């Protein structure tokens, strides 16, 4: 067991009822992440997108999360307060099933970094520019087990072992060293 360590968890609370669909969050996000900073804006480059169907009263600000190489096999639909949400409405993944959260030029995945910068901003800019108060920044402290960080090669080996089994890997390594 590792030692307990305090960690700051950064959270953006989304109150979808308050969102008015202006998409200022998308504009400021893409501007902040432009190079040079603020030199351009384009919602397609934003790490937050508002999933909106105004005539169905659906407004869901969603943040870009992890990249996934494959889309889900089965998908869900949600009905909340009588409104049916599309299968991917709440999902944060940069996923082959949809266009959002991909850098338009390269297709590489985008991920929200909470506007990390030096010096730190008081709050992510999407929160600052949301005058509807649909987005609120919160920090909370959590105690987590301190884990030793794996090195890059170990991560790779672990993935190979998961896929082919440790014995096969060891055989291969042995064969490769014989060749040398």
């Amino acid at each position, binding site marked *: 067991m590792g030692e307990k360590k305090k960690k700051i968890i950064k959270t953006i609370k989304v109150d979808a009822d308050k969102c008015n669909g*202006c998409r*200022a969050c998308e504009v400021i996000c893409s501007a902040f992440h432009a190079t040079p900073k603020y030199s351009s804006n384009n919602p397609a480059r934003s790490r937050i997108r508002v999933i909106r169907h105004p*005539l169905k*009263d659906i407004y869901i600000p969603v943040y870009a999360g992890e990249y996934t190489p494959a889309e889900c096999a089965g998908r869900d639909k949600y009905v909340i307060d009588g409104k049916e949400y599309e299968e991917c409405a709440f999902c944060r993944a940069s996923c082959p099933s949809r266009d959002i959260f991909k850098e338009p030029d390269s297709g590489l995945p985008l991920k929200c970094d909470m506007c990390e910068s030096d010096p730190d901003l008081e709050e992510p800019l999407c929160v600052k520019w949301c005058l*509807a108060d649909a987005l609120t920044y919160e920090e909370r402290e959590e105690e987590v087990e301190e884990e030793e960080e794996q090195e890059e090669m170990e991560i790779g080996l672990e993935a190979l072992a998961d896929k082919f089994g440790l014995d096969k890997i060891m055989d291969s390594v042995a064969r490769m060293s014989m060749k040398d």
Partner: protein
Amino acid sequence: MGDKRVKAVVVRGTKDINVAKPLEYMELCNEVLEYIKFRNENPIPGVMAILQGLGSPQEMATHDEKWHTENFMWGNSRLRRRDFWNEEIAKAWKDTMENMQTRLISCYNCPMKCGATITPPGQPTYMMKCFSKLTYTMAAMSDLEFGLGIAQSATEYGVDGFSTPQVMAFALELYENGILTDDDMPGMPSDNDGRFYWLLDKIVRREGIGDVLANGTYWAAKEIGKGAEEYAHNNIKKHEQLPLKLSMLNPVYFLMYATGEKINITQIEGQFPQAPYPKREHREAFVKDWFQVPDEKFKQYFLDWEPRGENSNPYYPTVQMSCDIVDWQERMHYIDDGLGMCAGLSSFPLKPPYHMHNYPKFISAGAGIDMDEDKLTQAARRYRTLVRANNIRRGMRRKDEKPPENHWKKRFPELEEELLDTYYKFKGWNNDGIPTKESLHELGLDYVSEDFEKRGVYSDDGDTPSKETSVEKEKEV
């Protein structure tokens, strides 16, 4: 657009919007953001609710409609109902709006919430903003439930919430007075609300009388004849105006109504309070943080403007002051249009976040164009003059620049003449409202004056003043 039978042009961009000087630009954006927050928390006292804040008039969020329902005219811009608003109606209309409204909504990248999604029972959802909340209700002398319901059909059909209800009220007035008859209205229901739905359908499908009415009250009256023109009483330059009939002539509004070429008063007014504050101390408080004025003199104009006495309408603001005030108001609208900005955060409200002093900075930082207040003023003049030049080519002259005869009860023909004479000179137009060769040259528009000469624009009306504007003259005709 109407001539071309085009409803709208939609542009969907997918590329980046580049900014010339990013850090300077963001600093300006941050200033505006802070000021919008300040203005949202500090509504302007002493003016009606819809003028206290920013954005398009907040009709979707405001339930108190005493001002509109008792000051605007009902029906075919005929009836003022001074004691209309009461607790019972206030409650019923609030309930209607709350039951039908799902959410306040914004335009792209704008912090205001001027619009709303509305779902009348049994009908699809649509989007609405501003005064279209009341136009159908008041034209039909009905209630809000009817107004929001028929506005859904109108929106789905793609007709407006302004001239459409007016032309329907006009048609029913003609019917009540025997100018239109059952032969013109075959199958029209007998109930009032039903008649409006019936007329809407006829107009949209251009069937029968609907085909005539679809051209608006001015042209419809001409086609119908039989005295119908007397009923198309609320036009300027052949276009329907807001249903307002007031008492004392306001010189600033006279000039705006008469000379505005974006046709509707809301497309020229703004910035300057619509009426004087009763007490000087209130006026002093108002001007204290009025940094949007392009010149300090505007503060004095407002400070000295009294509801009664020597410094009141119609002779105060003076003719020269009125020219200055109108010019500022109009300039801001043309700048907004030139920039693609919404009037709701600039030209329309009092004390807006975008104004004459920061617009040049935004343009410089955003587009990299070397801009200052003088250059921007000149650019707006050029644009505004081109709009006039276009209308002049199509035959517009001084004789067309007249508010409806019954817009104000108290009219002052000599003053109105003087206002127009002075304003035309001030704008660089001749006495018939045509931009002079000199003023066109100054704006780099020599090709326009050459075109005018070729068409004989100067020689046929040119320097010969046409004095057909005054009400008195009109009555003689």
